[in-house]
């Protein structure tokens, strides 16, 4: 006001101050609690008034002796309630002219959510200009969006895993497909621990397909897949790599004797008739094998070519046989299966 020579300044009633700053704290000259804003008064209870500030709060970064000068030295304070629930406040202290006291405006800082929960606060407990409610809103919205994004990521991950399984699976038999076989082969070669590759091929499959229909052919493929799958360990790879061609990769099984046992097992099961709609589906199986010893790396297509040579030898010498590749000029027949008779029966029909 023009002409007014009184020192400039404000005079506010505690009520007006409380509306502007509902979490204010005013201390008298000896640092005792004199007034508190309505929200803070609710939190502290009437018993706290008149106590020294360091009896009510634990002050971080404060000197051992809490004095007015020490409080005012720091631009901001961190105060934690000594009583449960140990709410932490951030505060800015300013001197109060006249009574030698200190006015501290407090806020909940990063502990806002906990304070709202612990003290059951509502919008009415914050100043109309305080961004606390906006912050709570933002936090809840962010949490909801983040949860939605995480669920979306989970869905995509599941879909990706399913697509990968599909990309590696032969849908008819549930075995691996050629890509699965190539990956398994590459892994075995990279591990360098030695393995056996068997290339199996159905004989007379085309005739079953042509004379009894595709449904019968599919049934034969599924039955054959089950026989091969059950003949090896769960960790070994069995794939259908073509119409009636299968590849088995057996980790570590690198002796001819174990191959003989495996061949007898497979041929024994293949000898039992596969029936479809009450009719016998007469097929046989020829197998070529190549052993890749540990620590002697060869290319994957070389291993496949060696098994192919042995498979050709099995077919050439009358089918239902398991032949082992020995060298570029030698193969050795390990098993001659009993199904030869079934085949002969079929041919004599």
């Amino acid at each position: 006001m023009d002409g007014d020579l009184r020192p400039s300044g404000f005079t506010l009633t505690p009520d007006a101050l409380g509306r502007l700053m509902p979490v204010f704290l005013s201390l008298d000259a000896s640092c005792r609690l004199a007034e508190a804003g309505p929200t803070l008064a609710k939190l502290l209870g009437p018993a706290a008034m008149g106590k020294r500030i360091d009896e009510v709060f634990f002050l971080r970064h404060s000197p051992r002796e809490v004095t007015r000068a020490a409080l005012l030295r720091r631009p901001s304070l961190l105060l934690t309630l000594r009583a449960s629930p140990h709410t932490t406040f951030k505060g800015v202290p300013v001197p109060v002219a006249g009574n030698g006291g200190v006015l501290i405006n407090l806020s909940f800082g990063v502990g806002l959510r906990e304070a709202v929960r612990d003290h059951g606060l509502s919008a009415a407990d914050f100043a109309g200009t305080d961004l606390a409610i906006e912050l709570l809103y933002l936090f809840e919205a962010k949490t909801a969006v983040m949860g939605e994004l995480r669920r979306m990521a989970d869905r995509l991950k599941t879909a990706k895993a399913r697509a990968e399984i599909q990309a590696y699976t032969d849908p008819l038999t549930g075995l691996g497909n050629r890509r699965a076989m190539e990956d398994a082969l590459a892994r075995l070669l990279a591990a360098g621990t030695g393995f056996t590759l068997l290339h199996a091929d159905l004989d007379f499959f085309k005739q079953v397909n042509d004379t009894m229909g595709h449904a019968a052919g599919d049934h034969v493929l599924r039955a054959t897949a089950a026989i091969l799958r059950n003949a090896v360990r769960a960790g070994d790879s069995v794939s259908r790599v073509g119409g009636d061609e299968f590849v088995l990769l057996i980790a570590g099984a690198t002796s001819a004797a174990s191959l003989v046992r495996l061949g007898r097992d497979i041929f024994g099961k293949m000898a039992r008739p596969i029936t479809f709609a009450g009719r016998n589906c007469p097929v046989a199986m020829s197998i070529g094998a190549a052993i890749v010893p540990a620590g002697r790396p060869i290319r994957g297509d070389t291993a496949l070519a060696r098994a192919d040579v042995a498979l050709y030898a099995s077919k050439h010498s009358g089918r239902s046989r398991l032949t082992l590749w020995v060298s570029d000029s030698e193969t050795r027949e390990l098993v001659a299966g009993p199904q030869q008779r079934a085949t002969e029966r079929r041919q004599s029909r």
Partner: protein
Amino acid sequence: MHGLINKALQTFLCDSFGRATWDDVLARAGLRHRLDPDGFEAMNIYDDRWTQEILAAAGETLRRPQESLLEDLGTYLVSSERMENLRRLLRFGGVTFTDFLYSLDELQGRSALAVPDLDMPVLSISCTAEDSFALTCGPGWPGLGHVMLGVLRAMADDYGVLAVLDHCDTQGCTCPTGDRTCFEIITIRVHDPAHQAARQFDLATELL
């Protein structure tokens, strides 16, 4: 450990030492086939042991102590252009380096507001003498002290402050080899608050 931490470690190793080194580290840690080909997902939670295994494998692959790798990671988090967002979040802490140091008290709370399952240990700063501070890193992330050492060095540069920093493990502790109950302490002495020009920082960003 939260994917954000693992992803930061992955980005640091890839950027600093190349993708081939990262592949070697994964192979040595035995994680090559257990991790997606793209590496860590920022919003997934992973077994804590994976982080330890990757750190150990990185140390062996690069023939460097883990402590020095972790410190470089801390520096990278602040000074790499790719991590500009993180530097900004740290600079929110205050106008001066001392303000920033005091804001570390609130870093755990602020990080929990942003990413509730980050599980960052509590940091607490105390003023030990004029211009001298001690930062205590709570337990939970073994080696965090070394990362913070790199972060603080880079932040001192960012503020244009000359500061001398030291990492001291608490007594009888053998960090970062996995004692999860261990506190790590960093001592900070600010020698020249206006040693060089500070890097530009503006609270406002371009509005979308």
